């Protein structure tokens, strides 16, 4: 369910696109309701709050409560369903008696009227009997007060307790001989805990300068876990392919003309490199420059609201090759394409599809450039999010270049795009962006 949250709104927005005149308002309310709950949940995960963020949370919750009645008819309990069935049976019974006296010519019209009346009564009954009165629904209203009083909500997460089931119970059960297993589990965890405490005490004594034996110190050096250093900020290219050695091979593998690649390399060199470090511009020299083609780019991305914890995004670009015996994989990534003021809510970032990851060596200067060939998308409506689902739509323009070279330093992380149409990328095909 946690993984559902980021994609739910985008998928629902695509599922509810192009409503007819009667569906416009219910679809808008449904999207508003889901959006409010998703936004509320996202704000609840913040690790630091200001009065504004708490006010946002309260606003989202208020909006969710205002819109949730659109789903009321799907909160029907068994008791209500039985009541609805009983009401319908009684109604039909009454009608069967009165319709006997109706002329056959009027009977069809009467049947339609009866059906409409039956639906109306059913909806009235459902709306009267159904409700959202359950405790978990109410507990959301205490989140903001809790933050004001005690601090952020993830601090009190029960996730650690849930994870303890593995360490304290399952890890003890697995090596046991399954006889009198509860006692073995308790002994196993108790022993491990006691050893950890003993090691902590010895470490503490060592820090204070206590005289410990060499064997103890050696054992402490072996067992003490080192403090994990933050992930390096650089990007790492991995998965070298052996079928490419120079620019000519590179063109053949990608299926792009040599002229096109040379043009892009020259354009990249002129726009991004200082004059004295530019790549040679003669095609005869350029096409013989050594190239390494790679399939994976590791990008360290700062975790949400953290300053020294990184998530590693692994962007794959296998070209036409299969990935782990499945289809080929060429991921969508975020590229920093301009300043923060550009492209509206995208803040200077554009989504792009990886076409190639490669290193090119300029032998004359003995420098290596780490580049990515990408296919950039453009924002629709200047990157302004939709008023209904708050998502930005992007598309591949017909006049867009099929291959643009960027430095891998400008790749910010994996992008999550939801296709509105066919799965393959096609010109003018809009995409919905989720990670805005």
């Amino acid at each position, binding site marked *: *369910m*946690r993984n*559902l*949250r980021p994609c*739910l709104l985008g*998928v*629902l927005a*695509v*599922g*509810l*696109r192009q409503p007819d005149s009667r*569906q416009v308002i*219910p*679809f808008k309310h*449904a999207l508003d309701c*889901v959006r409010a*709950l998703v936004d509320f*949940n996202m704000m*609840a*995960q913040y690790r630091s709050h200001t009065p504004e963020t708490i006010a946002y949370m309260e606003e989202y*919750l*208020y909006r969710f*409560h*205002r819109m*949730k009645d*659109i*789903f009321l*008819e*799907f*909160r029907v309990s068994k008791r209500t369903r039985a009541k609805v069935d009983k009401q319908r049976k009684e109604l039909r019974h009454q009608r069967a008696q009165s319709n006997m006296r109706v002329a056959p010519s009027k009977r069809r019209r009467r049947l339609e009227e009866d059906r409409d009346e039956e639906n109306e009564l059913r909806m009235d009954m459902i709306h009267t009997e159904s*409700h*959202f*009165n*359950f*405790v*978990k*629904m*109410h*507990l*959301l*209203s*205490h*989140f903001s007060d*809790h933050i004001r*009083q*005690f601090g952020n*909500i*993830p601090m*009190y*997460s*029960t*996730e650690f307790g*849930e994870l303890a089931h593995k360490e304290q119970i399952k890890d003890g059960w697995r090596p046991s001989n399954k006889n009198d297993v509860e006692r073995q589990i308790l002994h196993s965890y108790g022993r491990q805990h006691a050893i950890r405490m003993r090691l902590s005490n010895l470490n503490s004594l060592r820090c204070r300068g206590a005289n410990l034996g060499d064997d103890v110190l050696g054992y402490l050096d072996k067992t003490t876990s080192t403090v994990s250093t933050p992930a390096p900020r650089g990007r790492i290219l991995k998965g070298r392919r052996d079928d490419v050695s120079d620019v000519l091979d590179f063109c053949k593998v990608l299926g792009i003309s040599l002229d096109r690649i040379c043009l892009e390399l020259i354009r990249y060199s002129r726009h991004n490199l200082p004059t004295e470090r530019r790549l040679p511009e003669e095609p005869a020299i350029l096409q013989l420059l050594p190239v390494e083609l790679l399939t994976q780019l590791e990008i360290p991305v700062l975790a949400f609201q953290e300053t020294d914890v990184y998530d590693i995004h692994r962007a794959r670009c296998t070209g036409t090759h299969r990935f782990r015996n499945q289809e080929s994989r060429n991921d969508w990534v975020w590229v920093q394409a301009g300043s923060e003021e550009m492209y509206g809510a995208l803040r200077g970032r554009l989504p792009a599809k990886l076409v190639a990851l490669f290193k090119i060596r300029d032998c004359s200067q003995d420098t290596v450039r780490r580049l990515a060939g990408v296919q950039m998308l453009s924002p629709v409506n200047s990157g302004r999010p939709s008023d209904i689902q708050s998502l930005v739509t992007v598309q591949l323009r017909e006049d867009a270049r099929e291959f643009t070279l960027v430095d891998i330093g400008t790749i910010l992380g994996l992008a999550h795009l*939801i*296709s509105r149409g066919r799965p393959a990328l096609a010109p003018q095909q809009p995409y919905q962006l989720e990670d805005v």
Partner: protein
Amino acid sequence: MENVALHGIKSNVCPKCEVLPGELGTDASSLRARDCARYERCERESASDDSRTMFETLGIDLEKNVFHGLHLVSAPGLHKPDLIHTVYLVLFKHLMYWISGFLKKHARLQAFDDT
């Protein structure tokens, strides 16, 4: 369910405030917080039918619980929000059920599944 035992309440009431069971699904705010000391005092001083009815309405179970009589302990303050068991495992699960019903009603379930 552990809240029921810890806070001495019935299963369909809030452990933090005196919201009525029929108002749990509303956006009711600024409700009176639970005050266990007051409940205990009421129970001691007047065992009348009125106070019993009041406790019944507020969903209070007056048997002694683990926090009974502890000085400076506010049992309602011990309840902490739980994103996993409140939002992910309950509300999002309900929401998916409602959404699938909504999509089925408007013949959009296939488009949603395809996406």
